[in-house]
């Protein structure tokens, strides 16, 4: 059993070493995924949580820049900061002070916003159990060859993440949701990044294969925010995501940076908290996993040499309306406020009530029966 595999390996090496293009092909198919998805969630409401929205939007921006299209990104923002009345510069969300970088941009599509960002909707998006009328842009239509990036940010604690100040998701629920995704073959590999206080507690309970997780702080530590902007009046970003954004700005779609570089982002000297990661459930070695496997959308192109002959273009068969023979119906615009028509409008069908005489008769019957059975002497108490 071993010798044939060794021989085939040798043969493969020879073939691989022969041409450069073969090497690249080998690199292509080492990850095994064919499409990329991203689910980016900001769970905090209110103006003073501006930094959480800025966190999510900076990851959104990087992911879009590296190639994942809007149709493959599910962006959930729990509150609107850009057009908030307290924002001195409307339609902008800045990540660097002195308003250097507008991460909101001009081309942004938010799929879940405001009150729609709830634990139930988040879990439904992950597991795919959405009502049938949900539009495509709000669904995570991943399959078993999708690499998914999940980014959560907000306020959290030991074992939970707070959604919109009114509910929370626990690490057990999250782990179970990922297991459901695994069993329904909804992902090939999944990268989970969380930037909250005590974020490492959220990935402690994972048990499904092919999961890699990163967190901004360990249990018992708080994740801190980076810098305030005096004109806007709030903290703009959290430290971990700030340095993550700086790291991702250097990545381009053809970059060969791997996960070990990502684990080194924001050491304790810069972040004050200790970022953590978990790779024991991941089958491949993190050193061989490219950043663009999750953050970018590398399309695999297969070059073929066979020729395909195109057919002649299909002629549109126009339906020629038969004019003249048919009687033409003249249309007209409707009167916008037809006063006389409205006044004489038939009233709508009211709910049916029994006729008044019936009710009167019913009460008379009840009274008669009462006095018959209990005697007429009670009558004098009433009249």
């Amino acid at each position, binding site marked *: 059993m071993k010798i044939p595999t060794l021989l085939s390996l040798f043969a493969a090496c020879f073939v691989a070493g022969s041409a450069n293009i073969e090497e690249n092909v080998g690199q292509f198919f080492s990850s095994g995924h064919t499409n990329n998805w991203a689910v980016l969630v900001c769970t905090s409401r209110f103006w003073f949580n501006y930094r959480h929205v800025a966190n999510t939007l900076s990851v959104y921006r990087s992911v879009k820049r590296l190639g994942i299209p809007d149709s493959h990104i599910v962006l959930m923002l729990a509150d609107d900061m850009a057009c908030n009345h307290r924002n001195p510069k409307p339609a902008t969300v800045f990540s660097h002070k002195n308003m250097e970088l507008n991460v909101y941009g001009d081309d942004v599509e938010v799929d879940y916003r405001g009150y729609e960002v709830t634990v139930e909707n988040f879990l439904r998006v992950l597991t795919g159990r959405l009502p049938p009328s949900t539009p495509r842009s709000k669904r995570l239509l991943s399959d078993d060859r999708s690499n998914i990036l999940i980014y959560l940010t907000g306020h959290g604690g030991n074992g939970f993440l707070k959604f919109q100040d009114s509910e929370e998701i626990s690490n057990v629920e999250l782990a179970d949701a990922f297991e459901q995704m695994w069993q329904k073959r909804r992902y090939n590999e999944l990268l989970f990044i969380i930037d909250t206080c005590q974020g490492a507690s959220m990935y402690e309970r994972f048990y499904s294969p092919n999961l890699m997780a990163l967190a901004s702080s360990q249990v018992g530590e708080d994740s801190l925010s980076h810098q305030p902007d005096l004109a806007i009046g709030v903290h703009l970003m959290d430290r971990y995501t700030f340095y993550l954004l700086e790291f991702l700005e250097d990545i381009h779609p053809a970059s060969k940076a791997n996960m070990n570089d990502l684990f080194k982002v924001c050491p304790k000297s810069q972040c004050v908290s200790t970022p953590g990661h978990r790779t024991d459930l991941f089958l491949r070695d993190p050193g061989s996993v490219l950043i663009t496997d999750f953050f970018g959308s590398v399309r695999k192109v297969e070059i073929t040499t066979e020729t395909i002959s195109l057919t002649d273009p299909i002629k549109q068969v126009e339906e*020629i309306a038969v004019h003249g023979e048919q009687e033409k119906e003249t249309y007209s615009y409707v009167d916008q406020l037809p006063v006389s028509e409205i006044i004489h409008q038939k009233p709508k069908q009211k709910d049916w009530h029994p006729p008044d005489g019936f009710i009167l008769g019913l009460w008379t019957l009840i009274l008669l029966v009462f006095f018959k059975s209990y005697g007429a002497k009670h009558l004098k108490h009433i009249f």
Partner: protein
Amino acid sequence: MRYVHDLQLLVTLTHPKDDFQEELVIRPLQSGDVYASFQFRTLWETDFMKGNKVSHYRLFPKSLGQVISKFSVRELHISFTQGYWRTMQWGQPFMPSPPGAELWVWFQDSVTDVDGTWKELTNVLSGIFCASLNFIDSTNTVQPSASFKPLGIGNVTDHRFLRYATLPREIVCTENLTPWKKLLPCGSKAGLAVLMKSEKLFHSSFHSQAVHIRPVCQDSECTTTSWELRQTLNVVFDLHTSGQGKREWSLFKMFSRTLTEACPLASSSKIYIDITDNPQVSFLHNILSLKIQAVVLGDRRTFSVYDLTEANTFGSMRSLNLLIRWKSSEGDMLRPLLHAERYVAGYGLQTGEIHTLMYNYHPFRSFPILLLDSVPWYLRLYIHTLTVTSKGKDNKPSYIHYQPSKDRVRPHLLEMLVQLPPNSVTEVTVQFERALLKWTEYTPDPNHGFYVGSSVISALVPSMVAMDTNNTKERPLFSSFFPCKEESSYFVRIYTEPLLVNLPTPDFSMPYNVICLTCTVVAVGYGSLYNLLTRSFQIEEPNPRLAKRIANVIRRLRGVPPLA
């Protein structure tokens, strides 16, 4: 003869049946602000309804075409607005819209389950426009019985097929503008749409974007219909925040862009500047502009027209930047004839009163208005307290339609046809009681308050100037939205302010406090009782203190008896 006939048929077949026009109207306002209104209209002669699967979309966006054919929509009007239109300072808008999101739809006669189709339609539209329109359900949908007649052509109006809903809390931001711009044939790459930069558009007092789909007449005989899609964007730039206090506006100052070309797919691309109040319009180079007069909103106004499809509009610089300067003293603003306000009166968290005031500023004419009020179920209206008074006297409406609410199922609907006497204020008051919601029904920020949608007032206002009733003549788009049936009056729709009411809100931190308090009381109360009952007392020699012990030691040394 036959060959000529065939040739004619061939010509009509190859002639494109869709048409796209774009225009921008800039009107300087009396208060120093500037009102800019974009309108994009696509006309398409096609039939979505007769079962033909339309597959070749050219100028008409495919996403909306599929919505129309799948849900058998006859008319669709959706608007997203940020800010409130101040009628008394700015006059009447070309396209009125309430704050938040508003959606009203007329379905075709062939739809059997209107409510189910409505629910699916709102979900699909929430995906197209990136808005949370999926919150529209039976608790905020009403079926008006006399308002919102179809704006397109049609012979039958059965109000069973009409649905109306508003979401006053809906936020409008770049994420709504992005898909809206993608519906345009040229996108935001060419034509007037290059001016739409979100950083400037949302830094304004009023911003409203809307999509209107309706069937219209193709020609004056009106035997064939075509589908019209209008996308409108109305912005009012503030004198002080965007204008730095000067009544001097240019295209570059308003939009931070200049125009370089018209949309190649547009058959007409024009800019109209309202020069009735004599503002000075200047530009970088000499271009001739046409002056036209148009009757819009009951007033004859003069506009200066710049045609972008002509190459010489852009001159040698290949860009167009117009500068408008005007003084505040010139020109008298025509006071709008109809104005409405609404507010909540009362105190406390139990009862209140809604007051709606309608002002008729015409000196001698009275006219009827149709008031539509849709109040959520958690404000329980007491209709027996409804009063309508004008000039102190009772004014009985000629038509009242009231549908009571059902808790958690449907809202109140009140429609009244009221005749407003000339030069008067009409006040409609109704008392209500606030309901206590279940704890799961509160929003995550319940102390902000709960919104009540704007009232809608539809009226035929007498016009000072004869209106143009020929609906198919070539007219600027901004004057041809509401169909005009008679010359002496024009149709307006006014929206009041939305209301923000506080409902009695429980303190959501109470469960934690209750647990702490209960545990403390139980521990202290039960603990002490237990100790009292089970503790037994033993007499014990106290351990002598250190000083006493040392004293005892010294005493023992001395041979004297120790202390007690």
